[in-house]
């Protein structure tokens, strides 16, 4: 376990959450430090998306705690967490197809003061020239990849302390995936922390400082992105064999 002296930006402890009767997360512990990129890996149905939703307050949680920037987020809705600087880009690039690119970004800047809004929008667009060119066009006219970029841009508009990206690569061509992930790298430089849920392990590891592997609703592995033999350990973690050993090994 890597212990850091600095108080983590995001600190999740013993989190239990789920949908109605379905408990998906069983006592999840993760943390993200300032300016750090953390990849959250794991097979489908492991609870990655659920975890992000619980953190941003889209889902209520029944046990455990979430602290962000020292603030207790229990019972805090998505709006407050967003205001606190925690931006959540949900899966499936669900942008508002009937509204223009600019409007989509303005909506993300809803709480930002009037005169500041356009500044933020331009700033976010500066990361994605290809959609900046289409700023007047409706979201429906964008390709899947561009819609994903727009979704990420929506997250950036708030100048978040932590950006949570849920499978930004889903349904994107490798080229576009790289486009999105380079942005993640740039964000790290600006000191923005990123919590990245990814299917494409190599690509995730390429940008991440640390990885957590989630399986069956619990963290089965935490490691530095650079550690050797990580792939093999992940595989085992995924397929559920000898998990106990690994968790013991940590």
């Amino acid at each position: 376990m890597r212990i850091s002296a600095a108080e983590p930006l995001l600190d999740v402890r013993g989190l239990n959450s789920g949908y109605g009767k379905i408990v998906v997360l069983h006592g999840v512990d993760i943390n993200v430090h300032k300016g750090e990129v953390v990849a959250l890996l794991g097979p489908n149905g492991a609870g990655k998306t659920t975890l992000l939703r619980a953190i941003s307050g889209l889902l209520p949680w029944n046990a455990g705690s979430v602290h962000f920037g020292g603030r207790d987020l229990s019972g805090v809705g998505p709006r407050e967490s967003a205001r606190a600087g925690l931006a959540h880009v949900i899966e499936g690039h669900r942008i508002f197809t009937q509204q223009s690119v600019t409007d989509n970004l303005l909506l993300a800047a809803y709480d930002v003061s009037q005169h500041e809004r356009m500044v933020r929008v331009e700033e976010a667009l500066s990361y994605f020239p290809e959609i900046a060119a289409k700023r007047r066009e409706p979201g429906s006219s964008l390709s899947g990849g561009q819609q994903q970029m727009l979704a990420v841009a929506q997250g950036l508009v708030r100048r978040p302390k932590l950006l949570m990206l849920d499978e930004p690569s889903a349904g994107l061509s490798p080229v576009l995936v790289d486009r999105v992930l380079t942005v993640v790298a740039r964000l790290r430089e600006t000191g923005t922390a990123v919590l990245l849920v990814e299917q494409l392990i190599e690509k995730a590891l390429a940008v991440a400082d640390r990885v957590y592997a989630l399986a069956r609703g619990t963290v089965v592995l935490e490691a530095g992105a650079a550690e050797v033999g990580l792939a093999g350990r992940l595989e085992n973690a995924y397929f559920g064999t000898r998990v106990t050993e690994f968790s013991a090994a940590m």
Partner: protein
Amino acid sequence: MSGVSDAVERVSTNDVRERLRNASASMVPLVAIFVVALAVPVFSNDYWVLIASRTAIYWLLVGALNLVVGFAGQLAIGYVAILTLGAYVTTILSAGNVSPPVPPVIALAIAGVAGSVFGVIVGLPALRLRTFYFAISTFGFATIVTQIALAWQSVTGGGIGLPGPEFPAPFDTRSGFYFLCLGCAAVCTWMTANVAHSRFGRALVAIRDAEVAAEAAGISKAKLLVMVFVFTGAAAAMAGGLFASLQTYITPDAFTFDLSILFFISILIGGRGSILGPMLGTIILTLLPEFAAPLAAWSTFLYACLLLGVVLAVPGGIAALLDFRNRKPLDQHRAIVPRADVISEVLRPSQMKESLTLSDIVLSFGGVRAVDGVDLDIRPAQIHGLIGPNGSGKTTILNIISGYYRPQSGEVTVGGETLPAGRPATRAALGIARTFQTPRIIGEASVIENVMIGGTINGCGTFAEALLMLPRGRRDEAMLRQMGLLVLRSVGLDSLADVRADRLQHSELRFVEIARALMSQPAFILLDEPAAGLAPDEIRRLGELIREIVRRGVGVLLVEHHADLIFDICHQVTVLNLGRVLAAGTPAEIRVHKEVVSAYLGG
């Protein structure tokens, strides 16, 4: 179905007694109410007899309408239309405005027939329209009928209306007539209760709360609703005939929309899917204005307050307040212990020798090719695992097999015989059962009832037989309940048989769904992520259960994320990616398949 008949033979006498006890237990309060009602003329006066008659007449209609609104969940707010029709038909026939005068009793019967026809007409839009739209369309019929009554002066007397029919002795006195109404109400209640406690009643509730699961169980919404509309229409029209006689005179303005609302509201404050609740609702709403006579001016307002109060405070209605059995806490530390040995009792050795085959299936939504030329071969007595990343088309394939989606090309066959595409209700009869990713359960029904839904197609009694509780209907019930209990025992939930399903834990619901699938004695079972949300030991037991099912010759298609389970129990595994088959083979082969590992892990 030999297995089924075995089950029937195995119905031991105490099972039957048990079943009767359950059925009659729910009848006790109803009977009690009618006993008290019988006494009304004895220790009170004509006024209260009149009010009681009115209540009985309203209940005659509401009781039947309860099947449409309370059970099938169709928002029929305009049923005063059929009341009006019945009133006018009875009156006109017995007055002889169009024909030689007919004796009122016979006129009443004819009205019943007319009502059942009209009931179907008013009801049919429910098959096509969304709930609120349907509500408004019934309201439309209500207006049309009164307007016609108003305009057709030569027959209906127009605005002045007609003197209502007078029933012959012994029904010509206040109490005589009251007993007539009470009799009709009692019969109607008995019939409704019979339907409610039959496979048809459960099917109605299934249509309301779990339509998709209902289709998978082979329930045809259209057929079922038409039968119910016929019954309800008849009852409502006869209520109209009695109403006309009670009023002694009918004019179009006697059939106010408030009346319609009263019927509708009685049911909903009574509680959906209950008979006692709506009955109390009707009684309360009919008596209330009489006790609150001085408040007449505000009656509607109070009435609305009551309604709002009920909706906000007790959405379950009166029935929920009276449902004590489901108040007592369940054992918190209960565990699901499937009894593999019982499976052999539940499932007869499957005769199915051919396999369920998908050949070159293609289905795209919009531009996206969800399934892109997939071949699949599910053999009897084998477990076929289907894995792959999200959006790789696993569930889509399940939905194609069970007939919810119509593939653009390719076909699904069993032993060379093509299954009709896009018709889910046919699958149960073809021996294909399934479970769902998120359990499709009727929360307000008991666990056993939920399970019995799965056996709906095994019943052989008709709706009429159920209505009149004829032997075949009774036997169906015995058989289904017996099977249900057996199946529940096999999945290890028999201790929860009579508990409201929505009180169960998620993991238990998964097993309830499997039990429901087993009810139809299927040759193939499609399981959609049965292990999702289950604890490790539960997953292990699930594995054993599936293995045992397969031993009886059933073919299983298992869509699962829990790779460990897949590799543990499957005979064959197919890996999908982006709608295509990435690899197929034995678990061992797949386990080491390089592409799979990378695709599955990404990379």
